[in-house]
C-alpha cells in the first residue's frame, strides 16, 4: 500500500511530503498523491525516524501475566518505536539460540515492530558461566547485544571474558551496573531521605564502581561496552572521561531517570520503586546535561511491566520497575526539548540513530531520505495529554506519570511502509 505523508516537518526542520512505497521512501518534496495512495495529512506534525529502544522487557516467555511480545510491541508502536531490544530475563532465560529465536519469531508474527532479542551473558543470569553467545549471534535472531540485565555481571574475570568473546561477532555487552555486595536488600537511593524513611539504601558508588571497572576493562581488551540505565552524576562523569579517552563506551538513560527524583519514595507508593532507583535532583540534572552533550548516547525505556499485585503492596515487597514505551517521547519532550536542551534532530539521534548503531540494526535510525526505509513516526508536538494508566496498551499498569500532563502525541508509526500505529488517515 502506498502512503503519501503530506507536509511533515522532517526532524523538526523544513516541511516536506514523503511517498512511502514498498517499504521505502521513494520520493520526497512537494508531491501529488499517486492513484490509490493513502494520504496522511501531517500538517503540524513532526516526522522522526522510527524510534529504537535498546532496553525493553517483553516478559514472554514466562511472565505473560505482565506482558507478552504482542502487547509490549503494540505499546512500543504506540510510543513511536519501530524496533525494540527485548531483554533476556525471561522464564526460561534467553541464554540459548532456541529461546532467542522463539522471541524473535513472536515479534515477527505480532508485526507491530522489529523485536531484537538480547542474549544473556551468563547461563541462567547466574553470573558464573558464559552462555552460548556465538550460537545466539548466529541464530535467526542475529543477537548482537548481550546483557544479564536485572543482574550485574559482577565477577571481573567473567566480564573480561565476555567483552573479549563478543568481539568475534561485533557484539556488545550491556552491563547492568550494580555491585551486589553493596546493594543487598536495597530499596531506594541511599541518602538522607532513605535514612529518614527507613528504606535500605542503594548507594551511587555501587553503580559507579562497576562502571569504572568495566570502562577500564573495555579499553584494555578493546571491546565495546554499553552501560544500561545510567542514573548518577558520578556515572555521567565516568562515561564522559572514558569518551574523552576515545574508549569504546556507550551509555543509556531512561526517561524516568531524566525526570523523576527520589522524593517520590516518601509516598511509599511502589509505582516509584525501580532499579536503579530514582535519584537526587542533582543526578537528574547531570543526566539531562549528559544527554544534551551526547555523553549519554541513548534514551532507552527499560520498560518493565509488572502485574498489579506486584505493586499493590508495601514497598519492600514490591517489584522494581516502571512502564516506559508509550510515554518515552513525551517525557523527553517535556524534560529536554521544551526547556531547549535538545532539539528534535537531537531526539532523533538519541532515540533512533545511535541506538540502531549500537544494536547494529542496518535498517533503523536511517535518515529520512529517498531510498531509505519507510520506517518513521509522526508526532504532534503541540498536543497535551494527561497520562491515564487505563489507556495503556500494555498488560500492566505500573506507570509513574499517571495523572500528569505531558506534551506531545504519537499520531502514526510506520515500519517499512506499513502502518503499525495510528488509525486515522
Amino acid at each position: 500500500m502506498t502512503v503519501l505523508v503530506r507536509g511533515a516537518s522532517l526532524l523538526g526542520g523544513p516541511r516536506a511530503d514523503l511517498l512511502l512505497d514498498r517499504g521505502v521512501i521513494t520520493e520526497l518534496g512537494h508531491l501529488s498523491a499517486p492513484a490509490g495512495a493513502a494520504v496522511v495529512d501531517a500538517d503540524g506534525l513532526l516526522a522522526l525516524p522510527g524510534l529504537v529502544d535498546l532496553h525493553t522487557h517483553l516478559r514472554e516467555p514466562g511472565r505473560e501475566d505482565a506482558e507478552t511480545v504482542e502487547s509490549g510491541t503494540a505499546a512500543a508502536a504506540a510510543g513511536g518505536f519501530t524496533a525494540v531490544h527485548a531483554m533476556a530475563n525471561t522464564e526460561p532465560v534467553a541464554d540459548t539460540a532456541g529461546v532467542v529465536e522463539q522471541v524473535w519469531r513472536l515479534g515477527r508474527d505480532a508485526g507491530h515492530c522489529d523485536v531484537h532479542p538480547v542474549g544473556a551473558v551468563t547461563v541462567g543470569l547466574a553470573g558464573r558461566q558464559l552462555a552460548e553467545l556465538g550460537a545466539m549471534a548466529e541464530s535467526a535472531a542475529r543477537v548482537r547485544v548481550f546483557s544479564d540485565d536485572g543482574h550485574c555481571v559482577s565477577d571481573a574475570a567473567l566480564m573480561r571474558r565476555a567483552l573479549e568473546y563478543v568481539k568475534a561477532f561485533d557484539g556488545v555487552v550491556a552491563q547492568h551496573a550494580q555491585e551486589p555486595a553493596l546493594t543487598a536488600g536495597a530499596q531506594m537511593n541511599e541518602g538522607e531521605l532513605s535514612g529518614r524513611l527507613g528504606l535500605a539504601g542503594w548507594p551511587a558508588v555501587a553503580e559507579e564502581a562497576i562502571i569504572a571497572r568495566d570502562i577500564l576493562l573495555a579499553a584494555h581488551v578493546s571491546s565495546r561496552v554499553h552501560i544500561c540505565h545510567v542514573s548518577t552524576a558520578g556515572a555521567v562523569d565516568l562515561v564522559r572521561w572514558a569518551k574523552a579517552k576515545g574508549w569504546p563506551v556507550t551509555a543509556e538513560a531512561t526517561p524516568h531517570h531524566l525526570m523523576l527524583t527520589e522524593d517520590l519514595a516518601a509516598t511509599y507508593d511502589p509505582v516509584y520503586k525501580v532499579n536503579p532507583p530514582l535519584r537526587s535532583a542533582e543526578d537528574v540534572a547531570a543526566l539531562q546535561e549528559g544527554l544534551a552533550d551526547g555523553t549519554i548516547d541513548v534514551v532507552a525505556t527499560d520498560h518493565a511491566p509488572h502485574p498489579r499485585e506486584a505493586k499493590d503492596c508495601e514497598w519492600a515487597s514490591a517489584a522494581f520497575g516502571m512502564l516506559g514505551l508509550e510515554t518515552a517521547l513525551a517525557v523527553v519532550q517535556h524534560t529536554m526539548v521544551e526547556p531547549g536542551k535538545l532539539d528534535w534532530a537531537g531526539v532523533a539521534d538519541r532515540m533512533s540513530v545511535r541506538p540502531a548503531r549500537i544494536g547494529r540494526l542496518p535498517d533503523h535510525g536511517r535518515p529520512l531520505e529517498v531510498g531509505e526505509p519507510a520506517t518513521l513516526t509522526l508526532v504532534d508536538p503541540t498536543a497535551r495529554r494527561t497520562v491515564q494508566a487505563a489507556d495503556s496498551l500494555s498488560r500492566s499498569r505500573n506507570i509513574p506519570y499517571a495523572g500528569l500532563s505531558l506534551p506531545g502525541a504519537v499520531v502514526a508509526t510506520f515500519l517499512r511502509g506499513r502502518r503499525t500505529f495510528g488509525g486515522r488517515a
Partner: protein
Amino acid sequence: MQHLLTIADLDREEAVRILDTAEEMARLTDRAIKKLPTLRGRTVVNLFFEDSTRTRTSFELAAKRLSADVINFSAKGSSVSKGESLKDTALTLEAMGADAIVVRHSASGAPHRLAHAGWVSARIVNAGDGTHAHPTQALLDAFTMRRHLGDLAGRRVVIVGDVLHSRVARSNVELLSLLGAQVTLVGPPTLLPVGVESWPCQVSYELDPALAKADAVTMLRVQHERMAASFFPSAREYARRYGLDSGRLRLLPDHAIVLHPGPMNRGMEITADVADSDRSVIVEQVGNGVLVRMAVLYLLLGGSGAAEEDR
C-alpha cells in the same frame, strides 16, 4: 488527627495533648473498675505482621479499657505471598467494619499504604513499621521521662545503639526535639544512618562524655546478627564500647533515668544489674504504654479540639 503514622503527623500541641490525656487515663485507671465506656461499640483491630506479644497486648488492653471490641489478627505476610497479604487483609477488615487498625509490619511504609491506598476507611495507628517509625513508643518514652524529669524542654536525652535499624530511635528523635529536648545519638559509625547529620540532634561515637550530662539514657536493642554483616566485630567489643554497665551508670547524674524499649539483650547493650537498678524505669515504661495507647485511641476515634458545650 486522622491517623497516627509517624510523630511528624503531630504538632507540639497535639503531642502534649496526648501526654496530658495519658495522665488523665492514669487517674481513671487507678479505680477499682478500670473501664471507661468511651469507645463502646467501636471495633479496634490489632493487625500484627510481626510477632510482638508485648506491644499487641498493650494495645489490646488499652482498647478494652475504653470498652472497644478488639480483634487480634496475626497475619504473617512473607515475601512468598508477595504483598497480597496486606491488601487482601485490609479489604477483609474493611468488610468487618474495623474503626481503627493498629498495624505492625516489617516493611517501612506499610501503615502509610494502609492509610492512603484507599483499601480501608479505618483510622490507622502505626505500631512499628520496619526501620521507619514507632510513634506510640516515642510517646510512652516521653511520658515516662516527663513523669520523672518534668517539662522536657532543655532536657538532655542520650539514645545509644543501633540507630540505623531502629524505628524507636527515629521516632524518639522526632518527638523529643518537638518537645524541646536536646537529643544525642551515640553508636559506632556503622550503625548511624547516612544523612544523620541533618537530623534534629547531635551525634557522637563516644558514650562516656555524653553520659556525664544526660538526664535520660535510652538503650536500643542491638542484635547479634548485625555482627555477621560486619556492623561491629564482636559482641564483646560492642558491649565494651557502647554497653551500659554499672561503671557507666555511675557516670550519670544522680537524677538521670535509664530507659529501654525492649526486649533487652542483657549483656549486650545493657547489663543485668543496670536493667534491674533503681535508675531503670524499664518496667514502668510498659505500664505507661497502656496509658499512652488509651490516649491515642481516644483522640483518634473521635478527633480532637474543643467545642461549645451544652448542659
